[in-house]
């Protein structure tokens, strides 16, 4: 294999890996947006929350896996509580109220983070058995944890596909995203579906933050960039579409990666140009239905 082809493939791997991680965040966002109609600006903060949770628990227990096992139920619990206490009263209100609420949540979560952890950058150690690199070329090795990251994200994506396709909840989610009133009149408890979707979405974002912590480090405002890119993914993929979020994420990951290499001066713009191009050709996104919310 020629050198340039090898490096091209490694970059594809980098892009896919960035995209898969993005998918975990964006899929939660698109579910909450598409099914509940809530514009959740605090989604990036949930990503940050996950990262800080594992940072705290890794320091306590010394092990990333234990930290993740403890943190995921906490994230789900928080999702249920937030939905019941804060979001429920606002479903019937205008989008603007939800934007205000979720923006407020960003500020509150940032302030709590600042009080508890301070404003320094922290690192989370890569688990010992993944703390090695695989030699690829004479001057390049690939950290094993990054490969694990991609595999883990693929497993989660597969689990979500199964959940949406084959379970009762998945059926309700699919139906709910198509026609909310009809689902309700068929006797499905939409309140329960909402709560499950919100908790699932929050947990996915937090989980992304957790497994990304060892490679991305943990720092104030880390959720902000992720939030913006996730919205780009949701728009490209089509609102409410998990499949759209999946392919949208991969597209963004690859565009961002190759943009940085081939157009370094415009690297900050690549994904937005891509979004504009997609919207020109398909205003509802790649897998969105025209006319949907």
């Amino acid at each position: 294999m020629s050198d340039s082809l090898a490096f091209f493939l490694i970059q594809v791997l980098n892009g896919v890996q960035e995209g898969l991680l993005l998918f975990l965040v964006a899929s939660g966002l698109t579910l909450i947006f598409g099914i509940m109609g809530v514009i959740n600006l605090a989604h990036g903060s949930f990503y940050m929350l996950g990262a800080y949770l594992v940072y705290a628990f890794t320091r306590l227990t010394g092990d990333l896996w234990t930290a993740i096992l403890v943190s995921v139920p906490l994230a789900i619990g928080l999702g249920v509580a937030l939905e019941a206490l804060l979001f429920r009263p606002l479903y019937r209100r205008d989008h603007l109220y939800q934007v205000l609420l979720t923006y407020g949540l960003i500020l509150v979560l940032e302030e709590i983070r600042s009080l508890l952890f301070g404003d320094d950058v922290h690192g989370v150690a890569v688990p010992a058995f993944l703390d090695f690199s695989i030699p690829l070329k004479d001057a390049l090795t690939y950290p094993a944890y990054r490969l694990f990251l991609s595999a883990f994200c693929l497993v989660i994506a597969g689990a979500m596909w199964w959940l949406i396709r084959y379970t009762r909840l998945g059926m309700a989610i699919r139906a709910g995203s198509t026609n909310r009133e009809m689902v309700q009149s068929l006797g499905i408890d939409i309140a329960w579906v909402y709560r499950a979707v919100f908790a699932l979405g929050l947990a996915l974002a937090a989980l992304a933050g957790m497994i990304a912590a060892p490679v991305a480090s943990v720092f104030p405002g880390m959720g902000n960039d992720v939030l913006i890119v996730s919205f780009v993914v949701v728009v490209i993929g089509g609102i409410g579409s998990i499949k759209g979020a999946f392919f949208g994420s991969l597209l963004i990951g690859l565009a961002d990666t190759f943009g940085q290499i081939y157009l370094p001066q415009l690297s900050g713009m690549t994904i937005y140009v891509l979004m504009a191009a997609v919207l020109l050709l398909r205003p509802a996104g790649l897998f969105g239905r025209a006319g949907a919310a």
Partner: protein
Amino acid sequence: MSNSTRKASRRRVLAGMAAAGAAAATGFVPTRFAIGQQAKIRLGLMLPYTGTYAALGKNIDDALRLAIHERGGKLGGRDIEYITLDDESDPAKGSDNANKLVARDKVDFMIGTVHSGVVMAMVKVARDSNTMLVIPNGGVGAATGALCAPNIFRTSFSNWQPAYAMGKVAADAGRKRAVVISWDYAAGKESTDAFTEAFTKSGGKTEKGLFLPFPGVEFQPLLTEIAALKPDVVYAFFAGGGAVKFVKDYAAAGLKTAIPLVGPGFLTDGTLEAQGEAAQGLETTLHYADDLKFAKDKAFRAAFKKATGRAADVYAVQGYDTGTLLISGLGAVKGDVKARDALVSAMEKTVFDSPRGRFTLSKAHNPVQDFYLRKVQGTENRYVRVAIKALADPATGCKMSA
């Protein structure tokens, strides 16, 4: 005006003349008397007291006060009132904060700050309001370049300086092909351009510039590109958390043993604890090192340690020298901040032994100083040699004819 006041005023004029005669006889000038003995000198410290740069701001603040305290706690014989304001390293709030110091607090001097974007806001306010400004860190070129002004001084460095020094060091070491990498923002561009300028001048060539949005830390694609290009040297401009992450990722990608990584001192300053093994042996250039042999440096490090309990670093040195510059300037005009021309001229001519070495200012008010090549050993940036002696910023675009 009534008749009686007119009479009274004539008497007062006579009395006043007598008093003035007495004053002249005892040898003090009324205006300086009023300022010198009654009002305090107001120093507005606009620094990051929270956030990523909080430790840097704290060191600058403490060292500045230490310098003034060591010389009796006064400036030109006048007492000092310190007014502190947290700039939060937020450029968006920079103008508002600087205006608060000038309009509300009526400070005689603005001192600040770390973040170059906030420095730019302070420079604009200083120029508009003609307030004295001393910059104890932010290296943005324009502050002592296109936007230079008689009332603006810098005691730290310009982004151009350490980068230029490293460009020369890298080329002198026989490296021919370089890749530069930084965040896509003004300071990063200034730094990588200056490296390329010196590197090219000495026969090298920068093959590619890699930039990612500030303050992103997903370096993997760029590291892969570096491995594909296989340059002789990589010049990186990152600071704080980004520097920690980049140095660690560079090592994890297996590049550290294959391609030398160099940068300005910020790549390894204040970050070595976190970088650990990944930073060992890295070479950087800066106007300070952790084991300089100057007596002044030894004394300063001991005094700073005693006063704060912390180890001194380059930021503390810059704060300390800001204090020394104020002492010198205000001493020359006996605390009279209204004597602006004399004050500026005294500050311009200030020469002293700083912990970093000899301190002098260029015509554009930026330090002319030696740049040291340092090498990471343990948690210290050890002095290797002088990379360039008495390096002055080119002050591109500065129209000041001081």
